[in-house]
């Protein structure tokens, strides 16, 4: 049995599906409790119903975008694991980056079904699980104290928020620029010196695919601004990725 067939086996579906089901039940419990509490404290029921309808409709398009992410990852990690990761805790760009770093750490040259092994997969899955758990860990240990502290002074809260939003936002963007630059730099370096210093004989495919991805994203951003289509944001990353991935099929034939 090939590795992808193993990763798509009913047992793996069952393991991942059970966790998705548990989280779905949690969502139902939180929603029902919130609705009942809102009613009990005299909140307008119409407002709560409007929230539910607005949130459900708001979530449809981004969810389709997230589904495209599952498709993008399913070729190397099988379908059930990306399904679980993108239903619970994860986000497409996080998952792909962590999976790639994990693949490198286990000694395969990248996130690819042709090199995937069962050991590599279970290690990648563990790393994907652990790398992005911190929000939950902090919630588990500090959310009660943190929300109480916030509730004790609204002015302090605003001040804290604006201070955090100052360099904090810039640092986060810079961190992602650093992350993206490391990978793009490696594609450039791989092409220029991959087969010997400055021989320009290495593989150009990853660099070309990245350029197509960037061009597709530019197109999405242009269309969003030109037609004031905010809904396109939900598809820009996944859509650009799929366009760039499709280009790899054709570009690969040229190489």
């Amino acid at each position: 049995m090939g590795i992808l067939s193993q990763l798509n086996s009913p047992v793996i579906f069952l393991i991942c599906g059970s966790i998705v089901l548990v989280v779905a039940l949690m969502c139902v419990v939180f929603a029902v409790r919130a609705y009942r509490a809102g009613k009990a404290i005299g909140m307008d029921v119409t407002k709560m119903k409007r929230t539910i309808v607005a949130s459900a409709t708001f979530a449809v398009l981004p969810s389709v975008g997230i589904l495209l992410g599952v498709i993008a990852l399913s070729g190397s990690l099988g379908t059930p694991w990306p399904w679980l990761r993108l239903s619970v805790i994860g986000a497409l760009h996080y998952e792909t980056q962590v999976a790639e770093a994990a693949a490198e750490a286990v000694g395969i040259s990248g996130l690819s079904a042709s090199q995937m092994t069962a050991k590599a997969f279970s290690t990648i899955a563990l790393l994907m699980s652990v790398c992005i758990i911190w929000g939950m860990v902090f919630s588990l240990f500090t959310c009660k104290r943190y929300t109480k502290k916030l509730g004790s002074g609204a002015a302090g809260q605003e001040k804290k928020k604006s201070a955090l939003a100052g360099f904090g936002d810039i640092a986060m963007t810079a961190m992602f620029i650093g992350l993206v630059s490391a990978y793009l730099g490696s594609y450039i370096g791989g092409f220029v010196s991959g087969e010997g210093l400055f021989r320009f004989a290495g593989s150009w495919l990853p660099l070309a695919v990245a350029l197509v991805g960037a061009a597709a994203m530019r197109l999405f951003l242009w269309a969003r601004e030109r037609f004031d289509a905010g809904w396109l944001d939900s598809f820009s990353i996944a859509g650009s990725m799929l366009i760039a991935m499709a280009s790899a099929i054709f570009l690969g034939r040229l190489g």
Partner: protein
Amino acid sequence: MNEEKNRQIYEKYLEATHRLGRLSCALTLVLLIAAPFVMGAYLGAMPDLGAFGKGFASIGLVYFVSCVAEYLIYVPMLGAGGSYLAFITGNLINMKIPCAVNARDIVGAKSGTAENEIIATLSIATSSLVTILVLALGVLLLIPLQPVLQSPALQPAFDNVVPALFGAMACKYYRHNGRVACPTLLLMAALFMLVPALTGSTSFMIIPSGAAAIGLAYLFYRRDAARA
């Protein structure tokens, strides 16, 4: 009198929400960490902890910092119930936060109020359920397509998921940050060209690359603040 009663009900609700939230987080953490081991046992190959440690050292730090920032910024917006649920279900930036803000704007709830707490929880629970449903339906439809998705003709596409992602992200992040992005990219490209062996450790290179980008961003931030 009525206000006092409502306050008591709300405080009782909040207390129970924290208990439920902590329990849910703990359960989800256990399930998510156990899953790779359970799958490993089924596949006959447990995770390689040495490789895990190596991978965590390279990429874990980046996400730790990112998670701290997200936690500090989003909890005040989402309240207790919304935060527990949002950190469990993920997809914060691309869905949960805009969705909760949208719901809050629609009903006109203010940060830190009981109304905001209830609205954010309802909004995040509903959007998470929709995502779970859409993904489950999508995955169900994907099952018959597995032979097509696994065909050799499509393998170049799946082998290039990461360059495709980073190309798209580069456009998004570089667009308004050229003065930080260009020198960082040039530096990394020069390093990889001069020391091609580094290509095998790209994830480790995120650390110096991230440090260079944050350092540059800080210099520009200080300069812009001094000018303002």
